[in-house]
């Protein structure tokens, strides 16, 4: 059987800090019948620089990413709403009126966040599994408001015991370099979120962005909480432990 060919872009954070999420994403895509390529020249999409206003540096990183991706074929799948919306929305802005404008448009048009690709494009989406555990889902802002992703994760988590998480569509306080530049405020917003996570009774906190999850997991660990944090790809791949 000749499956659909896709390009996996794991993001810099997954590559360096959470490779298990990259392997889970790979497994989910392969289990769904895709032939997965991993463009080895990929590094960082440039969002950290873009978000602090260092546009020149952001453009350099974006140009590199565009070059790496543009020579490949098929959908570009990213296990992050945030990096996806960077490519989908901001690359086009960054290169508007330059000789990379077409390239940015081409790559943006091929870019899909993981849950979006599985549900909207593949249709035959897998179900997440997690034996005997209850899950709270955090909708990360850039996927939710930047790309309009909400129903996709809900659909993937249909067969799982979900608990209500108050404020599950509110920001967790991460905000990229905001978390380092204004750490006390970031942590105060996080604390409110973690109080709600703990009050929800969930065993596992799940999300679609390693960035927010690493901030929340770091906070839960600091509190000595028993709540486990997983990327949705890990549940979809059956790596729930």
């Amino acid at each position, binding site marked *: 059987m000749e499956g659909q060919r896709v390009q996996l872009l794991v993001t810099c954070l997954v*590559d360096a800090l959470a490779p298990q999420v990259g392997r889970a994403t790979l497994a989910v895509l392969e289990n769904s019948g895709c032939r997965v390529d991993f463009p080895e020249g990929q590094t960082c999409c440039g969002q950290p620089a873009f978000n*602090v206003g260092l546009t020149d540096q952001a453009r350099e*990183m974006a140009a590199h990413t565009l070059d790496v991706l543009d020579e490949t074929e098929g959908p570009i799948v990213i296990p992050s709403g945030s990096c996806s919306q960077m490519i989908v929305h901001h690359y086009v802005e960054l290169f508007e009126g330059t000789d990379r404008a077409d390239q940015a448009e081409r790559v943006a048009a091929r870019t899909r966040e993981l849950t979006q690709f599985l549900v909207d494009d593949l249709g035959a989406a897998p179900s997440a599994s997690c034996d005997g555990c209850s899950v709270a889902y955090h909708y990360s802002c850039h996927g939710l408001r930047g790309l309009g992703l909400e129903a996709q994760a809900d659909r993937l988590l249909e067969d799982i015991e979900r608990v209500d998480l108050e404020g599950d569509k*509110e920001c967790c306080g991460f905000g990229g370099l905001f978390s380092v530049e204004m750490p006390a405020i970031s942590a105060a917003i996080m604390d*409110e979120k973690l109080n709600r996570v703990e009050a929800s009774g969930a065993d596992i906190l799940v999300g679609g962005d390693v960035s927010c999850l690493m901030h929340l997991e770091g906070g839960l660990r600091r509190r000595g909480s028993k709540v486990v944090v997983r990327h949705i790809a890990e549940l979809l791949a059956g790596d729930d432990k």
Partner: protein
Amino acid sequence: MSQPVSFVTRADALLGSKEAAAVVKGIRHFTEARDRVAEEFPIMEELRDRARTIRLHSLRHLDRLLGHFADQVTALGGTVHFAADADEANRIVAEILHRSGSRLVVKSKSMVSEEIELNSHLEDLGVEVVETDLGEFIVQLAGDTPSHIIAPVLHLTRQDVAALFSEKLGVEYTDDPTELNEIARTHLREIFLRADAGISGVNMAIAETGSVVLVTNEGNGRLTTTAPRVHIALMGMERIVSRWQDAAVVLEVLARSATGQRLSVYTSVITGPRRPGDPDGPEETHVVVIDNGRSEILSGPTAEILACIRCGACLNVCPIFRTVGGHAYGTVYSGPIGSIVTPGLHGMEPWWELPYASTMCGACEEVCPIRIQIPSMLLHLRERAAAEGRLPGWLNRGMSRYARTTTDPQKWRRAKKWASRLSAPLASRGWLRRIPGPGRGWTQYRDLPRPASESFNEWWRTNRGS
């Protein structure tokens, strides 16, 4: 206007304070009501689109609309004054008061009067100024500053107000809201009757009829603009629409977004001074149209911010505002909208850091009745701050180094290896509890995962590579 202390310092001092707790508690009323009322009103989304079109149209035709408005007001027997900056606006108001022999002035809520610091200017000239909006009255009594565009005392509790009233007004302590309201009402009623002049803000001016629209919930706006002999309306120059039907659309989304009301309790429309045969109303009306930096904003990349109708919805949903409250911003306009307006009106120094007080979560744009692209304007201002060299050295240098590393896959591979090796001795079970350098802010509050000993890229090349 300038604040020597940074946003972060002010905000950190407010974290966990009684004031911040009051904000959290108060704000929930607004967001819940806003969501409820938006849900029950199926054409809300369509009206937001229309309100946006109307406001952007106003900005494109501002000169013409203001000219038309001034002609209409003049024809009605009123006077329009144009003030280039705060000083000129203050001078104009002072002259009107002086000429009309006004010594006691009542005010209904006006953010632009806060912006130009009118009260202190008038008090220096010996004019007695009394705020009559309940929130502003409390702020004035406390010698405080408003902390929210539409809810000036969001940061105070009912008990705070009770203590303040009993101390300053010499009444018996009560924290019953109805009784507190009655105390303020009785106190203010007598002042309304004695006042020589009334100063109000303007929610919207209507060019075709020369009317000003005031939206209040307490009726104090109506008394301020009708009881005294002189009425002075202060408006930011962007606060105008062409026609009545435009104003109606904006009103539909304003109260819903602000307080979750379908319409505010009072919507007053003032069209010129008292006419022959009118039983009441001021003999003189003045409208002071204030620029104070707006022309500059209008010609730049954040021009759209002038379409704001000051509902405060973006403040209410902002994770930062909700956590620290409005005083952290150190200026009249706080929250997401303030982080764009303030550097625009008062310059990047020292206000450039306000655009960084955001996680870019986009909740503001989602609720903005005018669909103002707030996050993208925050990014514009960040870009400007960075271009002006205002970012800390570590961030500039670090990001340049990061860009050099990530544009060369070999360097990126080596950097990950080094990061993993260097962090190994600091880590416990794959996590770091404390790291040195600029990232220490992270580990002050949370653990950090240690860079993996085998990156995904490396794993791929070993296991799947060609």
